[in-house]
């Protein structure tokens, strides 16, 4: 069974640290990797792909040196490997046009504005990962104790088996 990664893309090292720390309770089940730019993120995505693992969720800043976050998300949406990855924009400065682009072309799942509260971010990430595992995994039991249990039980009920 392959690992499901969470990747965080953020150019400011301190902010990236905070994001990763806020999510650390998930680390045991979902390895978390950080990237400082879109090009770093592409390298990271390729590495994860080559190791046979998957990316369940990306938390991405928008304004960064080099390619913008929204461009990266659109790219990921078009790529088969990252198509079903849940995409969250974590930003303070994405304009209306960029946000519209992200929603329409990258099928953005969530928009979280900075500054954020730890509990809210964690809940959003947990809910999105829950949707991801329900969509892609056959075996849901390992996630019951860490993700949104009610949603998972609901999925098991609908399937009628585990």
């Amino acid at each position, binding site marked *: 069974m392959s690992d499901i990664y969470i990747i965080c893309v953020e150019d400011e090292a301190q902010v990236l640290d905070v994001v990763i720390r806020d999510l650390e309770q998930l680390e045991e089940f979902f390895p978390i990797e950080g990237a400082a730019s879109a090009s770093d993120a592409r390298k990271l995505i390729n590495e994860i792909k080559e190791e046979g693992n998957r990316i369940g969720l990306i938390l991405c800043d928008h304004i960064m040196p080099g390619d913008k976050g929204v461009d990266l998300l659109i790219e990921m949406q078009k790529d088969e490997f990252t198509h079903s990855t849940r995409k969250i924009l974590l930003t303070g400065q994405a304009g209306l046009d960029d946000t519209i682009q992200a929603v329409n072309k990258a099928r953005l799942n969530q928009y979280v504005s900075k500054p954020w509260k730890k509990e809210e971010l964690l809940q959003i990430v947990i809910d999105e990962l829950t949707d991801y595992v329900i969509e892609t995994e056959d075996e849901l039991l390992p996630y019951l104790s860490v993700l949104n249990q009610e949603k998972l039980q609901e999925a*098991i009920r609908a399937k*009628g088996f585990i």
Partner: protein
Amino acid sequence: MPGKSKQKSNQIKFLTGLILGIIGFCLPLFFTFNGLSYAGHIALGIFLMAAVFWMFETIPIYSTSMLVIFLQVVLLSQQGVVFSDASLPTTTAKQHTSDSWLVPAEAVDGEKIYVANDSRNYTAIDVKILNRADWVEIRSNELQSDAKIVSNANHKLVGYKPVSFSLFFGTLASPIIILFLGGFMLAGAAVKYNLDKNLTSVLLKPFGTKPNFIILGLMVVTATLSAFMSNTATTAMMMTVAIPIVAQVAREDKFRIILALCIPIAANIGGMATPIGTPPNAIAIANLGQQGINIEFGTWVVMMLPLVILLLLLAWFTMRFLFPTNLREFKLSLKVDFNKSRPAIILYLLFAATVLLWFTESAHGIPSSMVAFLPIAGLTVTGVMKQEDIRSLPWEVLWLVAGGIALGISMENTGLAMWLVASISWDALPQVVLIGVFGLVALNLSNFLSNTVTATLLIPLAVSMGTSGIAGEGFSLVISSLAIAAACNMAMLLPISTPPNAIAMSTGFIKTPDMVKVGIVIGLIGIVATLALSQLYWPFIIN
């Protein structure tokens, strides 16, 4: 998520299972067992392979069932490679004196020889052996001078009359499978229109707000639903009811354990209540059906209900004792919102009509599997269940049961089941001890294996002990089969024992020792209670 070491141990388990399974299959090809027919050897090979694959889960358990049917069709059917052009080798007995005959040594089987009626059928006749040499001198007054006798008593057609391949395929459409399919259709539609959730809310209301009564309520509702729906789906649904309650309970309060544990336990127990509750029931009914014994839906319920109620109460008291709580009251937010769309109404009506007809079989005489076709046809004709809904039914469970039934057929008609149980003189034991032994074996196996698989392996043995008479006078097929099915369903010691247990364990609210404590009490007292019922209560119902 699992580490490399777990992957490795899985690989070892897979290879062990594969190798043992292949060895098991080949074993009867290289060894000849006395008293077992040629076809019995083939059936033994299939039985051993299936048992190993089912135990190790080398391949998914339903695909083992499919493999069983495939091998039976190829190796044991009249049209398969082994039997398609088989014909009995014959010779003529030589008249020796006025009342004795000479026959080849291989033609004699103990004190019997076989007279061929045609190329495939024979009649066994008893003879008196007078003199053994290359040719055996025998005396018989049944033998006629032009009789063709079978020259090789170990021939593959002796002791087994090949059946048509369609008998093995036909298991998938056997009445009990159709009964299950009807249950699946109702359950699938109930989930689609949230009937299960709404019923839960309605049924939970009378239990009030006191913690212990909420638990009793959860258990009663879970058991009731799981008598008609899959235990797994019921557990998952009831967990969605229990999780908001768990959130109201302090982390260290043991009440969290009860909340998470009471649901899988009640789901396992509730499955016993009706023929469609769990697959082991189907295996029992199918094996009895092959002996011409029909168990009505209502009769099954009447026989099992006391056991179900007893075990539910037992589990409730045990958990209250083991995990006491200080909590006084709870808020339950129970939303009742019955879907009132046209398809939902049709579902309610069909559900009620089907269950009513199932319970009144003795009044109208329509077999429960025929009634089961009412929801199958009714829900599809009216468009309540659509193509994608039908596709999402748990078909693999039907295959699993069908394979189990097919294996049972071959164990019976090749004489394998007889041969397996014949080595011990069972009739020395009283019936209650025999049932107790079967029950304990079933309970132990089923804690580690699928309940269905355990029933598949054990019930044919019990049935053949009854039909062959080696179990002695008064051995009831119905009582022994039901007791084994019940014992299979009482196995809930470990997370791996049943899917509902696995769900409960994965919630993270309970630890294995909690489950083991309650599981031991239910298993042991359950067996004792089953034995008591089998002697004091069941005989009055079936007579």
